[in-house]
């Protein structure tokens, strides 16, 4: 057990050090949602009539966005480790594939949560009405959401053979997850086919839960959304462990 925990700590240690040093990744992941918030939010906000201020309405969506982008790419980044042979160094250690997977998930989740925390801090200054309880619920939701997404990224990364596949991940996974989540618009009046897709998208439940936590408005209860995201996590962790076991170099 001690060996496993040390192994997980080792992988986390590496992710954390790299995170600290890749400043450009942090900067872009914090500024991208801010651009959306200020430019897109203000622009669209001027023509919409939502119950709450539109910019406030989409703020929880941007927390989810930060988690989606950074978790998925962080996971898929393992394909880069394959390319530079760092993965060999990890796979040749006595650690089991399940331990390696867990360490990677925790490392990626830490990065994603730190980035989202920076955004929450900025949210304070933007006048988003955070309370202690809403903060705890928000961080909890971001935490469980990140676990599933890092796992998804790792699964995709374990199948990719070269970093060139990153573009595909972005087009076919990251953007659909984000755009269908209701981060940018309410889901009440969209057409039926799209509603189906939004129901399949796990991000929908995370965004809804975040909106409940921060703005006290949502279509499902926080508990229900939490249960869905936990289910999503369990499924992806299981698939991810299997994907890691069969991963070849």
């Amino acid at each position, binding site marked *: 057990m001690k060996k496993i925990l040390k192994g997980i700590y080792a992988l986390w240690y590496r992710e954390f050090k790299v995170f600290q040093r890749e400043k450009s990744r942090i900067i872009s992941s914090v500024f991208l949602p801010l651009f959306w918030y200020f430019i897109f939010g203000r622009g669209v906000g001027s023509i919409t009539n939502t119950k709450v201020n539109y910019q406030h309405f989409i703020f929880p969506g941007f927390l989810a966005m930060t988690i989606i982008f950074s978790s998925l790419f962080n996971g898929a980044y393992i394909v880069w480790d394959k390319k*530079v042979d760092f993965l060999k160094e990890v796979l040749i250690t006595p650690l089991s594939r399940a331990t390696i997977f867990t360490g990677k998930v925790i490392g990626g989740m830490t990065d994603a949560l730190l980035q989202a925390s920076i955004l929450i801090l900025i949210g304070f200054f933007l006048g988003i009405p955070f309370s202690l309880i809403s903060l705890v619920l928000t961080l909890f939701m971001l935490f469980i959401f990140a676990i599933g997404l890092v796992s998804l990224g790792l699964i995709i990364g374990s199948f990719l053979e070269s970093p060139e596949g990153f573009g595909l991940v972005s087009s076919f996974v990251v953007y659909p997850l984000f755009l269908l989540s209701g981060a940018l618009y309410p889901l009440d009046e969209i057409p039926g086919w799209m509603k189906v897709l939004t129901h399949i998208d796990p991000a929908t439940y995370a965004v809804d839960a975040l909106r409940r936590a921060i703005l006290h408005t949502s279509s499902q209860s926080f508990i229900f959304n939490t249960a869905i995201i936990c289910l999503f996590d369990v499924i992806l962790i299981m698939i991810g462990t299997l994907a890691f076991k069969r991963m070849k170099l």
Partner: protein
Amino acid sequence: MDAIVINSLTKVYGTTLAVDHIDLTIQKGEIMGLLGPNGAGKTTTLMILSTLLKPTLGTAIVNGFDVLAKPAQVRASIGMVFQDPSSDELLTAYENLKLHALMYDVPMGAIDKKINEVLSLVGLQERQHDKVKTYSGGMRRRMEIARGLLHEPKVLFLDEPTLGLDPQTREHIWVYIERLSKDTGMTIVLTTHYMEEAERLCHRVAIIDNGKIIALDTPAALCESLGGDMVFINGKNLQPQELAKLPFVRKIETLDHGLRIAVEDSAKNLQKLLQTAGETEFVTVHLPDLNDVFLHYTGKGIREAQGSVMEHIRAFSKARQNN
């Protein structure tokens, strides 16, 4: 107990036999060299021994553990220095080594001491807090060798340890490997396609070509097995058939650019040899080295064996153009 016992080990990729029924026993404390051209199956063999690849057939026991049945125990008992850099460039040497120590369950209190110890062995303790991306290729290789030693493995695998390094750095690395073997008695298995490297470092050498071990012995015994000095001749109207009749000629190989002849006691017999050879323009005589051994067993020099890949490609593209 032997460090490594390999029985009939085979790896098939699609229709290619990368490793073809290899049998090999490596003793404890030995430096074993796997010598052969690129693509001979050396790296594949190391990958199987380190459990990163599964064999198609056959068995391999490393430090008493079967690579298929007990992969985690095998991995815990070996160290590996890969052919390509496998450290994280954004981390410092210290951080890369710490990461490694944690993954191999080196006791927490001993980690810093061990890191210092192995880094000073390769002369890098001064630079340990610099990021690896600021290192030269040679420094990075030294760092990765130090890393491979950190958890005190019983067997150390070195995949082409000096590939692409300048002569001075290569010499340094050779000295580290020699010292390591002498001081710790660690079993070392290295692959190389450099003759000098195999001759200098290895107690025994297995010559590998097309996935098979074609010769296995000490470098000296392999060279002696050729039965004489190596004479190379080029010129016009060379007479290999006549030369073959001479009693002191052991073997003649016709190369593109001349003849390579194994001759007993060349100092005494050279003149007679040249009289028989034809109109010679150029003659060299040398003691046999592993390249000659390789040539003897495969019918091609190790450098030519590498060239043959290009020849295949050329022949292939020519054939396509003609169609």
